[in-house]
């Protein structure tokens, strides 16, 4: 049995999500290999080889792979994946985009968002927006799965001694090409990996008002998130969204500000260690799951909180 993990990276650094997926792979037993596909991604391959538990890194380094398009990565996974018992990727937008395409090429029914690994073929995954947990057993020869990274401990990014093997990157695809991107630039920690997350909802009221959330976040070294309502209202970009269809977070401390607590939002943060809710409506559903609730006007509470920390 051996496991292939699809690395998440930007050609320069290995994203922390990969460390959690390697952590999940350790629960399966067997050798762990990592596929690093990209352009000028040698440093990423070296970093992956140093991760605890990794015995081999497959490096596909080719200029057309720079943006890791699904049409290029899925055939690579198809070709390399045949030699493995399991293929894992994080349940990030990249993993969600690429892995089902590879699974179909392998004629495998993928298992999405795995949160518990019982054994090599039995897994738990949330369904119905996390309102039910299904235990599923796969009869496919190769198990292809995305992993919810917040449910598995990250391995150390040192101590490993994997070998880096260069593989042929397939001929670049002619179906799709990269045309541009608008990435949010932030000095704050990554939302899915932050120890503290501060999220704002519709109650924050405007794009300008979001500055008070950001100020508090900076004081605490926290990441900033948002509810779908706040994103839809244009207060913050889409990549701030925490929830069922946005990002899943599980920090030590989650502070929900002006968020009522729709099921959709709760699905993305209810595994946080400590949840604080600040809302003017004492009946808001968010208080039903918050460890500490404070009812009141956020425009008074947040500056006071920031000042006193």
């Amino acid at each position, binding site marked *: 049995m051996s496991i292939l993990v699809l690395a998440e990276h930007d050609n320069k650094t290995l994203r922390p999500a990969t460390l959690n997926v390697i952590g999940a792979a350790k629960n399966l037993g067997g050798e762990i290999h990592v596929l690093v596909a990209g352009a000028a991604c040698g440093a990423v391959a070296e970093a992956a080889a140093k991760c605890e538990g990794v015995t081999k890194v497959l490096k596909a380094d080719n200029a057309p792979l720079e943006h890791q398009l699904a049409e290029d990565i899925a055939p690579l996974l198809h070709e390399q994946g045949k030699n493995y018992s399991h293929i894992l990727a994080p349940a990030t937008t*990249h993993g969600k985009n690429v892995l089902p395409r590879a699974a179909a090429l392998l004629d495998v029914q993928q298992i999405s968002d795995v949160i518990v690994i019982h054994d090599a073929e039995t897994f738990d995954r949330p369904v*119905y927006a996390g*309102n*039910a947990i299904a235990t599923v057993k796969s009869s496919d020869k190769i198990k292809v799965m995305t992993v919810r990274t917040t449910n598995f401990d990250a391995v150390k990014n040192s101590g490993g001694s994997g070998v880096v093997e260069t593989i042929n990157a397939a001929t670049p695809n002619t179906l*799709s090409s990269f*045309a541009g991107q608008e990435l949010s630039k932030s000095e704050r920690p990554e939302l899915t990996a932050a120890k503290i997350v501060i999220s704002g909802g519709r109650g924050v009221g405007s794009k300008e008002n979001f500055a008070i959330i950001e100020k508090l976040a900076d004081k605490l070294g926290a990441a900033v998130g948002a509810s779908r309502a706040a994103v839809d209202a244009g207060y913050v970009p889409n*990549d701030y969204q925490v929830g069922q*269809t946005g990002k899943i977070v599980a920090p030590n401390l989650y502070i929900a500000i002006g968020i009522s607590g729709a099921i959709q939002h709760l699905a993305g943060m209810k595994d946080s260690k400590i949840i604080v809710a600040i809302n003017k409506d004492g009946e808001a559903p968010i208080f039903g799951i918050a460890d500490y609730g404070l009812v009141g006007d956020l425009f008074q509470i947040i500056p006071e909180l920031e000042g006193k920390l």
Partner: protein
Amino acid sequence: MKILVPVKRVIDFNVKVRVKTDGSGVDLANVKMSMNPFDEIAVEEAVRLKEGGKATEVIVVTIGPAKAEEQLRTAMAIGADRGILVKTDAPTDLGGVEPLAVAKMLKALVEKEKPDLVIMGKQSIDDDSNQTGQMLAALLGWPQGTFASKLDIESGSLKVTREVDGGLETLSLKTPAVITTDLRLNEPRYAKLPDIMKAKKKPMETIEPSALGVDIAPRLTIVKVVEPAKRKGGIKVKTVDELIDKLKNEAKVL
């Protein structure tokens, strides 16, 4: 340009989900069912393309029970031209027709209908797999534009803006292609009564899965379905000072 829009009948997003006491699945008896919200966005997008003169025909297809005709009619009330029901009594949420099987059936339909574009929801709110569009694109050898928040049609190609973890990414895709919709692609309209009436008369074809000649046997066995561990609410504090004290000395997270 011909557009195929696959839609799914799922539990209405406002309904409280109840897990069956025998752990076999989610109780759907006498529960309000609706079109999967992401699919509604897909129908709306296809209809707007037709209204904008970019598309000539919008075909809507569903795989599900006889009652899924309701969702086809809803799509036709929004503006789809005709419907195809692939009738099956197998569950479509868990332990029945899985995404790979759906993708295979859709592939067979694509080969028959020859659309230039397939627009579908990025995931259904029942099994939450987020796989079918990507799988269909793979099986057809078509490019994919997943989690789309903007779609521009140019001659022979598409520009798709995608919602990704770091922000937005734009891809250029050759047609034919598969697009999966994210929440912010558009806001679906409410169908007006005359359109609802008109939809009742639009053509609808019913076929059996066997007519599509693909193997749809499930690959996953549902061992059990349970409710998640409930998180208990805590306490309400009265002041900011009390909150800071609790976070520092009780929860020890600051």
